[in-house]
């Protein structure tokens, strides 16, 4: 009887539709994750395994890619190679196994740090400016508010790269080319419109009564903003920060154009690895895998805040 009644329920999905939904979700997940699995596994393959056909799904894991990623190596003549003292470290040994010796560290670590500084720096700056601007737009009487908001949005109406040449010339004149500050300012300029619009939406949803209550409770407007508005905007700030970071972290075109020596980020650097001593796919894959981690960790750390509903129901409407 209960079986019958549940199969006729209006609100409960039927067994068939649950099945179909399940299959679709699993299939979609598989398709989405496949490239990721491919990259991560290639990073742990040896040079031979990485180019074998058909591709090896089961292989002997190797750290060759990671060692190559962080080192530069030179090939030495066979008779010289014999005379070398035995390898001192495990990574020395991995390089020797390829018939080479370590010449020195690669620039990957440095480029990766550049990405971290520029990515997180511009995200922090976008969020700081975006939150303050969004709060002002949400709460104060700003002259020409709608026009200003539209103007801010309009900066995203063309692809940022469309203004690459003026920016290139401007940066050269200002001495901002190939500097961390220059890249932080550039990515902030691109992200700020997104940040202002997203955050304004979130702050609009926070009832003014909270701040008014705090003002009467003896706080200044800035203190009320910090103690009452900010904690409640945490959800919005977290999701906006993730969007900003993803853009700044992945940006390639400006990075190629404006950075080379000092402030080059990881995206333009990783493809150059392939040119060092043949097609070193494991090293490229290892670089791509490491490159994925910060955004992933950042997103997981902020996941709690992404769940909405923190403020639900505290004000009677």
């Amino acid at each position, binding site marked *: 009887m209960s079986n019958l009644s549940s199969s006729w329920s209006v609100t409960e999905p039927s067994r068939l539709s649950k099945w179909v939904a399940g299959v679709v979700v699993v299939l979609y997940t598989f398709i989405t994750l496949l490239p990721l699995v491919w990259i991560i596994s290639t990073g742990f393959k040896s040079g031979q395994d990485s180019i074998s056909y058909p591709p090896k799904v089961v292989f002997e894991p190797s750290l060759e890619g990671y060692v190559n990623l962080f080192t530069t190596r030179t090939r030495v003549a066979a008779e010289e190679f014999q005379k070398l003292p035995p390898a001192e470290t495990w990574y020395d040994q991995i390089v020797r196994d390829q018939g080479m010796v370590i010449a020195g560290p690669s620039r990957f670590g440095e480029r990766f740090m550049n990405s971290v500084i520029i990515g997180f720096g511009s995200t922090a700056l976008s969020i700081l400016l975006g939150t303050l601007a969004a709060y002002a737009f949400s709460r104060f009487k700003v002259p020409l508010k709608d026009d200003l908001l539209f103007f801010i949005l309009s900066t995203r109406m063309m692809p940022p790269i469309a203004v690459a040449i003026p920016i290139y010339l401007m940066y050269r004149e200002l001495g901002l080319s190939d500097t961390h500050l220059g890249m932080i300012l550039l990515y902030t300029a691109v992200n700020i419109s997104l940040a202002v619009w997203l955050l304004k939406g979130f702050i609009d949803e926070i*009832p003014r009564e*909270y701040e008014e*209550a705090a003002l*009467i409770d003896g706080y200044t407007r800035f203190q009320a903003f910090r103690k009452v508005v900010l*904690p409640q905007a945490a959800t919005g700030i977290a999701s906006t920060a993730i969007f900003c970071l993803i853009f700044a972290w992945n940006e390639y075109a400006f990075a190629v154009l404006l950075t080379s020596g000092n402030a080059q980020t990881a995206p333009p650097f990783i493809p150059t690895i392939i040119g060092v001593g043949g097609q070193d796919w494991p090293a490229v894959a290892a670089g791509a895998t490491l490159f994925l981690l910060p955004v992933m960790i950042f997103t997981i750390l902020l996941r709690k805040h992404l769940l909405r509903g*923190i403020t639900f*129901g505290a004000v*009677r*409407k």
Partner: protein
Amino acid sequence: MAEVTLSNLSKSYGATQALSDVTLTIPDGAFVVLLGPTGAGKTTTLRLIAGLDRPDAGDIRIGGASVLADTPAQRDVAMVFQQYSLYPHLTVRENLAFPLRSPMIAMPEPQIAQRVKEVAEVLRIPHKLDNKATALSGGEMQRVSIGRALVRNPRIYLMDEPLSSLDAKLRADLRIELKRIHADMGATFLYVTHDQIEAMTMATHVGVLDQGRLAQFGTPRQIYEEPVTAYVASRLGQPHINLLPADAFGAAPPNAAQIGLRPEHIHVGEGQEATITRVEHLGDQTRLHLALGPHSLITLTEPHTPLKPGQTLHIRPMNPLWFDASGTRI
């Protein structure tokens, strides 16, 4: 505690005139209740005193000094909002402690703990102190919201229908509690309500607002017994005052356009014949709905009346209130 004076206060929001030319003195230690329908300017008055809005004209003085240039924090007032406005990211305890931790008060933590505990007991929420503010029922939120005002010792308490969402029992209890706080602490209250029982039981003074204007200000008895207009008369009294054409019972004073009859102004037993249309037994009293010719009116009778609909009785006015064509009492 302090005397609060409003002089010629006006405020409009866009095209809406919320308050016009209101002059009112809230004496030190008074419990002033503002009555009026939605849109009469009650909440606006509270917001202006609190400093959340700036008046277009007029002055607000607290303790003799104008506060127009002061921030809400500097005015040292406490306010209970109609929407409870509890800080949703804080616990009940943190909500109650919030004003005491402000830079204006900055009370030492041990004292805060003590004060929060006292207030929680008065409001019967000590077992909820560690709950998130969002995990409370509506009535509990309202109590925390009142508590956040009561932890302080401000110059005036501003309350915007604080008891409106509570159940009848709790409302009656808190009414007595607020009155006790008023009496014990000598605190000054400005209290907005729709509820006539709240007005009559708690108020030392009642102000009646009519479309942004102060129609009358006086003691609850004055407002009830000597209303200056038909509008004021209709704000107080359960059942409502009966307003009939002046000649409904024959002779009327010159200029009178309306006769106002509260239940106690209707003498039963002689006079004109009226038909009972409905009998409402409310337990402690019984309401009689009467038809007097084309007019209908309501009066009270004893709880166990044998009267039935369809029966007739004789009524005549006794010390009625008379109003002229503009609604002003004669």
